[in-house]
């Protein structure tokens, strides 16, 4: 019967599909090439710094190619794990400062000698701490960043807002004015605040004296369900109402600064580099250059600044590398004062205190430098990044933003998950 041939044909088709999905390859590193993984922020924000480092490295090692591969935050750790397992991780990798502890604790990185690197005496203490485990150095501070409110000065003026808000209450009142003035456009957001933007949301929690987790007697305990944290989260829920961003989306898909540049957004919480990025002629909109400003997010206590997440990145050398000395030389080139100056120009905070004054005198960077004076950081545990990867905070915020759970219930469930993850293996 012909049905039999059909069946055999089906089997062949199935195998062909399986074979076509099983393609893909790996690349080996040779002594003539080093592979560097940087995050795509560098690609869009400060390509000049990367080019400068590569030039200086080439001058030192003319025979060695530098292959800079740009990664996304969502996938780079998965790829690093695969590289560590397969022995072909890159020679140099950038990690977020909250991602370092897990990998240092597991022995993923080569130990480094501090004195070998430029400006090592004046590294930012927060970044240096995130590169150190049990007193040993496994990373080199790369750059730091913190968020401030980046806003449209023309829209603020048209809504009758005379000066940057000095308190959270004033901030809410001003944004309501903006919604009244421009909100008829159903795509307009006074504040662009996507549901999963946890760096922004947690600042409210810390402003009210709350925290994500506290450590007592060697044990962690999630603390988002404490009264202070809940007070902050209730303000977050109110802030979501000022936004028409996706309640299930995040700040990077699409890039919030590019959404802002299209004109239907009054403000957003952005890193310093997102200001120039909004003006990028290729993807952004240079015509709003004269209508942009920034101010530190105000606290609920009048006259104070809301704590901001002190983010940043470090550079590390995976243990699988066979080119350690080349990797060290490239990191030296990329953290040189010249390269760091380029990184500062792009709107970031340098890895060294030597360049801080340059940030404070630049009007486009001063609000961010001021915001950095009041900061918070994630719980200092090797398990922390698992909380990030399990999307615990994002899931909680989406529930709050969409109203699928009460603030109290969402926070309680997130808190118990955080307790469980942070104490794993402890």
């Amino acid at each position, binding site marked *: *019967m*012909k*049905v*039999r041939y*059909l*069946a055999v044909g*089906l*089997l062949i088709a*199935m195998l062909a599909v399986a074979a076509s999905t*099983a393609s893909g390859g790996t690349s080996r590193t040779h002594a003539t090439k080093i592979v560097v993984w940087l995050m795509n922020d560098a690609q869009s924000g400060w390509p000049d710094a990367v080019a400068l480092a590569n030039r200086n490295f080439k001058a030192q090692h003319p025979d060695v190619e530098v292959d800079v591969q740009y990664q996304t935050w*969502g*996938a780079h*750790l*998965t790829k690093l*794990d*695969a590289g*560590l*397992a397969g022995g072909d991780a890159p020679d140099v990798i950038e990690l977020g400062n909250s991602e370092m502890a*897990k*990998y240092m*604790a*597991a*022995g*993923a990185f080569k130990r480094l000698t501090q004195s070998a690197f430029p400006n090592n005496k004046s590294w930012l203490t927060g970044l240096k701490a995130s590169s150190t485990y049990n007193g040993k150095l496994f990373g080199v501070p790369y750059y730091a960043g913190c968020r401030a409110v980046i806003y449209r000065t023309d829209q603020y003026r048209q809504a009758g807002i005379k000066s940057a808000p000095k308190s959270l209450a004033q901030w809410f009142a001003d944004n309501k004015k903006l919604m009244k003035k421009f909100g008829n456009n*159903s*795509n307009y957001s006074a504040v662009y605040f996507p549901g*999963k933007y946890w760096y922004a949301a947690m600042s409210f929690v810390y402003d009210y004296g709350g925290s994500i987790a506290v450590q007592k007697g060697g044990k962690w305990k999630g603390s988002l369900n404490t009264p202070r944290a809940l007070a902050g989260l209730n303000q977050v829920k109110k802030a979501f109402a000022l936004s*028409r961003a*996706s*309640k*299930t*989306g*995040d700040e990077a*898909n699409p890039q919030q600064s590019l959404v802002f540049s299209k004109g239907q957004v009054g403000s957003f919480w952005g890193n310093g580099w997102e200001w120039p990025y909004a003006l990028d002629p290729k993807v952004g909109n240079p015509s709003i250059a004269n209508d942009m400003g920034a101010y530190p997010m105000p606290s609920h206590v009048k006259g104070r600044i809301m704590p901001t997440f002190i983010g940043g990145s470090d550079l590390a050398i995976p*243990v699988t590398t066979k080119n350690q000395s080349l990797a060290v030389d490239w990191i030296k080139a990329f953290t040189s004062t010249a390269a760091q100056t380029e990184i500062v120009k792009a709107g970031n905070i340098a890895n060294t205190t030597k360049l801080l004054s340059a940030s404070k005198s630049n009007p486009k960077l001063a609000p961010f430098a001021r915001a950095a004076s009041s900061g918070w950081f994630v719980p200092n545990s090797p398990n922390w990044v*698992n909380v990030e*990867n*399990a*999307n615990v905070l*994002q*899931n909680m915020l*989406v529930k709050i933003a*969409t109203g*699928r759970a009460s603030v109290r219930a969402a926070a309680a469930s997130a808190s118990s998950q955080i307790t469980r*993850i942070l104490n794993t*293996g402890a």
Partner: protein
Amino acid sequence: MASVAESGYIPASRRRRFSRRRVGQAVAPYVLLTPAAAVIGLVLAYPLYLLVKMSFQKYGLFELIRHQGKWIGTANYASIFHDAEFWHVVLRTLLFTTVCVSLTMILGTAIALLLLQVSRWVRIALTTGLVLVWAVPVIVAVDIWRWMVDYQFGVANWILTELHLGNFARHDWFANPWTGFGVFTLLIVWGAIPFVAITVYAALAQVPHELLEAAAIDGAKPWAIFREVTLPLLKPIFVILISLSIIWDFQVFQQIWVMLDGRPSSDYYTMAIYAFHQSFQISEYGLGAAIAVVMVLFMFAATLLYLRQMLRTGEVN
């Protein structure tokens, strides 16, 4: 060989040739099978062995870097079987698979029957459309659907609003997992229908016309003819299609993963995503492997159906 030479009157050379041919005939199939068996062993059996081994080990980031897991017996399995979220995920995956497979089979068969009735040109146009859908790579398909259901610029929200079915401006389909999975069901079924429709159509063409005619003459209504004549004849094909669809829909991953930016909230975890999450996001590779093994067992059940049908189809001939 010695005994052959000693025994009797048939010339030894001829007997040797004869037996050599017999040995050759017996061995040839195995020789021919060897490359395929080796490839299957290399790309399927060995990874599966590693997976099962890892599921009995503590295999975190520390162990990953040292390429050395720690044997912990069935602790990983005990842990997932006591994990309420795991059972939620299993139920969700089973429900999702059932809905997707049922819709795919019903709609696919309906389209196949339709293809029999329409004129040649309509049939060609329809088949071309089906093949095009089948040819769209998954990632591209997801991007198309993602734009269609975009909360702000999506054409789905615009059409629904224009049709006065409610105000769908900035309606977020993924805010509620039920509507979110509704979108994924549509996406999966849309992608799976062409294969089922074209295969069933091909099989329908094999149904002897005399049988259908005889049934019609005996006074059977179209539905009765379909149920009593066509369906039993096509049963082998249906069993194969259903088991293949179960296997495909049970392991849905990319569609959900890409649509939700690689950060699906836990409401959207299917077994494949849950296993990936435990392995690559939490770095609990042992736990992830245990989940994957359970998944393999589930799918093995579907494969058994499929294999049994394949063997039966072989026997009939």
